[in-house]
Every structure is written in structure tokens, then in C-alpha cells.
């Protein structure tokens, strides 16, 4: 069971949500959620390393075109795709082997939270770090922290929904 159709629909939904909703959301300049990274986090547990990297680049390229950021999203999401197996190992260990998607079931909430914070944090750090190129250090730092928090909450809600729908 690879749930190919579910993942294709999920991909389209994530791209549309990011481009039409989160890119246009004017909350505060400290919170800019790069929500689309949720797709890389919830890919099947048995996705290969090459597959993760390719999905990261593909998703990043599409977001680059919609946001008008040449290469910036690729830098961030290729790194998330590349780092995912390692981070999964550190945060979830062996629990994950019995699951198809990396949320719920044998995986406890604490492990998933750690997994999401590390990967979302990495993603937002690379994105905002390269975006500001070192200027406005404290502003960028607070933007990274606050955006990561908001995105992790959104990832959590999405993961719960996704598990319910696909099970």
C-alpha cells in the first residue's frame, strides 16, 4: 500500500494552500509560515533517500516559481529531504518501523514533536537565513523561531487529519 493517489492529492493541496493562503496571509512580519514542508515530513516511512531528495527539490522548485524566489525554496527543502532519514532515526528510533506514515500509532507525540521541530526549524532557518543573508540578525532569528512554532502547530493538525483520512 503506497497510497499514491492520496499523496498526489495531498501534494496539490499543500501547494495550493501555500500559494493561495499562507503566501497572502498578513498576520505580522514575524510569522511567515512555510507550511508546504509538511508534505516532506509526512511522506511514507519507507520512502528512499533518493526519493526524498527528489521530492524536496521538486516541491522547492514549484514554490520558487510561485514565490518569485530563485533557488531559495530549493535550498531549504532539498536539505529537509536529505536530513529526514537521519532526523527520523534520532527522534523516533525503532518505533517508526511498524508505521506507514510518520505520525500516530506506535510513534508517541513527543517523538513526532521533536521530529517536526528539527525539520521545520531547519527549513525555516535556511530559508530566512539565506533570504536576509546575515542582515537584521535579531529580527531574522525571532522570525525563524516564531514561524517555526506556528508551522509546527499547522503540521501537527495536518498530520492528524492526514492519518484519519488515509486510514
Amino acid at each position: 500500500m503506497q497510497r499514491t493517489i492520496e499523496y498526489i492529492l495531498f501534494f496539490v493541496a499543500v501547494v495550493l494552500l501555500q500559494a493561495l493562503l499562507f503566501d497572502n496571509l498578513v498576520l505580522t512580519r514575524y510569522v511567515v509560515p512555510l507550511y508546504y514542508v509538511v508534505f516532506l515530513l509526512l511522506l511514507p516511512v519507507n520512502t528512499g533517500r533518493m526519493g526524498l531528495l527528489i521530492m524536496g527539490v521538486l516541491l522547492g522548485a514549484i514554490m520558487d516559481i510561485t514565490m518569485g524566489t530563485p533557488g531559495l525554496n530549493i535550498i531549504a527543502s532539498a536539505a529537509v529531504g536529505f536530513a529526514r532519514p537521519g532526523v527520523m532515526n534520532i527522534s523516533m528510533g525503532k518505533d517508526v518501523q511498524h508505521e506507514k506514515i510518520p505520525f500516530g500509532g506506535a510513534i508517541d507525540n513527543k517523538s513526532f514533536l521533536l521530529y517536526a521541530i528539527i525539520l521545520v526549524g531547519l527549513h525555516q532557518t535556511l530559508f530566512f537565513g539565506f533570504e536576509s543573508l546575515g542582515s537584521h540578525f535579531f529580527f531574522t532569528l525571532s522570525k525563524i523561531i516564531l514561524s517555526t512554532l506556528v508551522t509546527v502547530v499547522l503540521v501537527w493538525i495536518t498530520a492528524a487529519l492526514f492519518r484519519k483520512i488515509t486510514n
Partner: protein
Amino acid sequence: MNKVLILLKRVAVPVLFVLIEVLAIGYYTRATSFTRARLLTISNRVTANVEGALRGVSDYFALREENDVLMQRVAYLENRLAVFEENEEAVRVEESSTPYYFTSARVVKNSVFGQNNFFTINKGLLDDVEGNMAILSPEGYVVGYTIDCSEHFSVCISVANRDFTMGGKSTRSEYMGSISWTGGDWRRIQLTDIPYYANFAPGDTIVSTISYRFPPGRIIGTVEKFEPSEDRMNSNVVVKLAADLSKLDKVLVVRYMGGEEFESLHSGY
């Protein structure tokens, strides 16, 4: 031989990853505002129509505020018209032709939180909108200029973009400098290259100087802070933007008939 293959398989992903990152970082750091605008022009073909429709729904909620602004503007223009009519009676000047032509447009996509912000308007090449046309808010404040156009849409570079530049001067002391944005807060921009002896005070109005993009005398913002530059030869002025970039909706596009002539004359120097 088998061992070599296994080794290759093992390092393929890390090597590919490093390669992708190097290429992406190289592309990103070398990209200009024009590259960014090009990407947005591509995605606009797909998303701008949807965003325009969504915008249409939210419009109904802003109608009242919109009406107030328009009524104020009507009143202001009526007043000016009255003055002109009176003058015309008195002097009968030859029919004056202004080199500027204004059209209205709607903002269908906007951003303020990035370090290089753009917005997209719903007029393009088919509406005679081209690159390097000034964009003003309905109140007449400077907000940006067009940079890349498709048939029905144009991507505009916002004042809050690190590649944005224009000339600005104080209405009180007439010293000219250049306007730019250093990133961070989109409500505050910089006026640099002001001689250190120039006299500025908080609250002074900063307006545009004439260029091939901008008509002269359009309000950019007001002086908030005034400090000497690092080498103490010049002064940096922090300007609070008059236009609220986060609420852009209706805008004016300004075509300068003499723009090309102006640009070609100046490009020689």
C-alpha cells in the same frame, strides 16, 4: 567491482545533495530582481486569476472604507479643478499638455514580509502597461514601479524591495538623495547621499524627484529620524512610508510619455 558499485550507490545521494545545494545557492545569490519578477510572471499565468477572484470576494467588506477614501479624493480634485478653472478665466493659457497619463489597476497579489517584495497588478501589455512605469496609491503616494509584464498582468517592484531605488528630496530644504530599503521593516525606508550640512527635521515631507519612472513631487513619506552616516560626510534619513504597502488594492499606473527619450538621453552618461 561489486564493492565499487555499492560505494557509488552509497555516496550518490549525498553527492547529489551537495551538487543541488551548490547550484541552488549559486543561482539564488546571483539572481536579480528581474529574475524574481520573471518567475512571478510565469506563476501569474496560473494563480493570478484565482487570486483576483478571491480578492473580489474580500472587496465587499472593504467597500465602505474605499468609498470614504474616494470621496475625499473627489473633494480634493474638485477643489483643484475650481482653482484651475478660475486661473483659466484669468490668464487663458495655451492648452497645457501634461506628459503623464494615469490608468487605474488592481493589485491581485502582494507581499511585504520578504526581503525582496513584489506585487502584481491586473493590467499588462494589452492595456499598454510596460516596464518602468510608476505605481502610486489612490492617495497619490509612491508604492513601486512595473518591472515585467505579461499580456494581462504586470509584476511590480515594491518600495520595500532591496533592489528598489528612486530619487527623493525634502519639500522644505530641496536637498536630493536616493531612496532605498535595507530590509526588515517595510514601513521604514532610507534616504541616503544627503550632505551632512543639509537641514532636515522629523515630520518633513519627502517627495519624488523627476525621473523616467516617476513624476516629480509625489509624496514618498515623512522624515522620522536623521543621523550622520558612518564616514560623517553624508547623512542618512529614515523615512516613514506614506503608503501602507500591506493594504495595497487599487493603484494608479503612470505612463510618462517622455520616459524613453529621458532614459536614452541619460543612458549616455
